[in-house]
């Protein structure tokens, strides 16, 4: 991507001066040209990684696609069925409900989470007190907690028997809050995800903010701009690339939504096998052995996420290049 985000000083050293590579005599003496030797060495370095990419990325994707084009039936056995499975998926109410739910979830949760992360990052960038340091450390801690354990802990905290929150409404005589039912369920799930990922995104944005050169807003400070004005008019625009990438990765994560609903399903009977597309693909494969159908769902999901995010990056790159 053309717009470089300044990385952390721990990772970047000053760039070396660019000089044309001098021809290496030692190589020539051995017969092979320097270029060929370099090409061979370079490909050997990359080869092991490529093998893994081929085996565990390209091959599974290709296989999922192949499977998705085939149906299995008792009479015919596996046979080519073209786009039949996709047609089925996009008319399958359970799949579509799950898909719509995840999109709704993302449309609401992602802006809230990134907004909180941005606010936290701006605060960290402006303030360097002990509280800020503790906050930075604590906010990032959930990143080290497995998603299933995060969901488990929140599940206990939400529950009427274990948790402190459901009974709070009893203080004014109301019935205990049911965090696992109705429209509150999606909010409860959103809170688990927000808890887990706000700190991570905050650190990403904070690191980007640290790379914004002071000169960019020194003039604004002298002109008497308020810190909030500086934050919104100078700092936020300066870290736009980091913000959009955080958004992409969050979208990719959201479309794969699985761990949190899978765990909370034990508390919340409303979470059925088709609650999210990924849960649906899993249950189709392992409950109903409908492997090719689940492959079609996986492939649809993966492909659409991939195409969307790639388009997004491509467009923003274009725009950045033109600007």
């Amino acid at each position, binding site marked *: 991507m053309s717009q470089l985000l300044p990385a952390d000083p721990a990772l970047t050293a000053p760039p070396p001066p660019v000089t044309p590579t001098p021809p290496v005599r030692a190589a020539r003496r051995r017969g092979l040209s320097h270029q060929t030797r370099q090409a061979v060495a370079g490909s050997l370095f990359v080869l092991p990684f490529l093998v893994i990419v081929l085996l565990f990325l390209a091959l599974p994707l290709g296989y999922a696609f192949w499977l998705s084009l085939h149906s299995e039936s008792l009479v015919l056995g596996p046979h080519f069925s073209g786009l039949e499975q996709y047609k089925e998926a996009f008319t399958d109410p359970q799949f579509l409900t799950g898909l719509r739910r995840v999109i709704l979830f993302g449309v609401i949760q992602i802006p809230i989470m990134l907004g909180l992360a941005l606010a936290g990052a701006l605060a960290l960038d402006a303030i360097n007190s002990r509280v800020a340091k503790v906050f930075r*450390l604590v906010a990032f801690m959930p990143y080290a907690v*497995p998603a299933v354990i995060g969901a488990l802990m929140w599940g206990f905290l939400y529950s009427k028997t*274990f948790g402190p929150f459901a009974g709070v409404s009893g203080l004014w005589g109301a019935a205990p809050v049911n965090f696992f039912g109705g429209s509150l369920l999606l909010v409860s799930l959103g809170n688990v995800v927000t808890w887990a990922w706000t700190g991570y995104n905050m650190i990403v944005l904070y690191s980007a903010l640290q790379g914004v050169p002071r000169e960019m807003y020194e003039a604004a400070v002298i002109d008497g701009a308020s810190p909030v004005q500086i934050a919104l008019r100078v700092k936020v625009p300066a870290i736009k690339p980091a913000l959009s990438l955080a958004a992409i990765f969050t979208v990719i994560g959201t479309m794969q939504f699985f761990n949190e609903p899978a765990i909370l399903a034990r508390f919340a009977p409303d979470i059925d096998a088709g609650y999210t597309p990924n849960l649906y693909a899993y249950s189709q494969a392992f409950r109903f052995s409908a492997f090719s159908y689940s492959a079609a769902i996986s492939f649809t999901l993966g492909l659409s996420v991939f195409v969307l995010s790639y388009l997004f990056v491509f467009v923003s790159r274009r725009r950045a290049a033109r600007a």
Partner: protein
Amino acid sequence: MTQLTTTEAGRAGLRAAARPRGRRFGEPNTRLAHTVMGLGIVYFTIPLIWIVFAATKSQPDLLSTPALWFGNGFDLMANLRQLFSEDDGVYGRWLVNTALYSGASALGATSLCALAGYGLARFSFPGKRLIESGLLGMVMVPATALVLPTYLLLSRLELVNTIWAVILPSLLSPFGTYLIRVFVAESVPQELLDAARIDRAGEFRIFWRVVLPMMRPAIVTVFLITLVATWNNYFLPLVMLSDAKLYPLTVGLTTWFNTAQQEAGTRVLFNLVTTGALLAIIPLVVAFVFLQRFWRSGVSSGSLK
């Protein structure tokens, strides 16, 4: 501890409210920011504080005593003893499995990333441009979309339900390769490599003796990222493994939790789930606190270029 922070945050909020509105130019509104940060600290620590208290309680206490305080008895030791003896001490195996899977995956993935990142940054060979432009795309393929087809492929090779089914797919880290490529391009000077070549050092020797020591910060970052990814992974081992002895902590604990929910207290398991969960997150949280610098540098390069 929670109470302390809340009241402090509350007091700060009051002070902020009482302050006159006019501020000096250029001075951040620190009171407000500190209030918000205080609330944030409470929010992010509540589940962790809860799990610490919960791990000290017996199952009856877990159900009957206040969630964010100690129970009637202090049963941490009893819980730990039961944790490591339940189901013939299977929890210990899960712990070892998790360490093995994440250690092996992180080591393998980091090695592959280091080699490939260096190869891409400092050599030219046919197909290099294609791989480089493909890297970003690979980062964007949702990992869970790969799990089901990988399962089907590995089951043909009869590799499912073995440790390889978890370790091998975890070796894939396009992001790590990307990170190292950027790092090498920025901080391993070409002149140094040329000088080593004039001294007639072999390419791998150059990598091992010259490049690797210079890459150390990037390598630690990639190692940590891949370690956490495997340690915390749930979907992959859930799909790949059916033998409880091979489970990592995430899958093992959730099966216990499922049993506890289904049997509704006939087996004493909730206290094991909480104690086991606490023990499962301690290593990474501690590692994270001590290696904060590396995590942050990794995350910041995570904003890509």
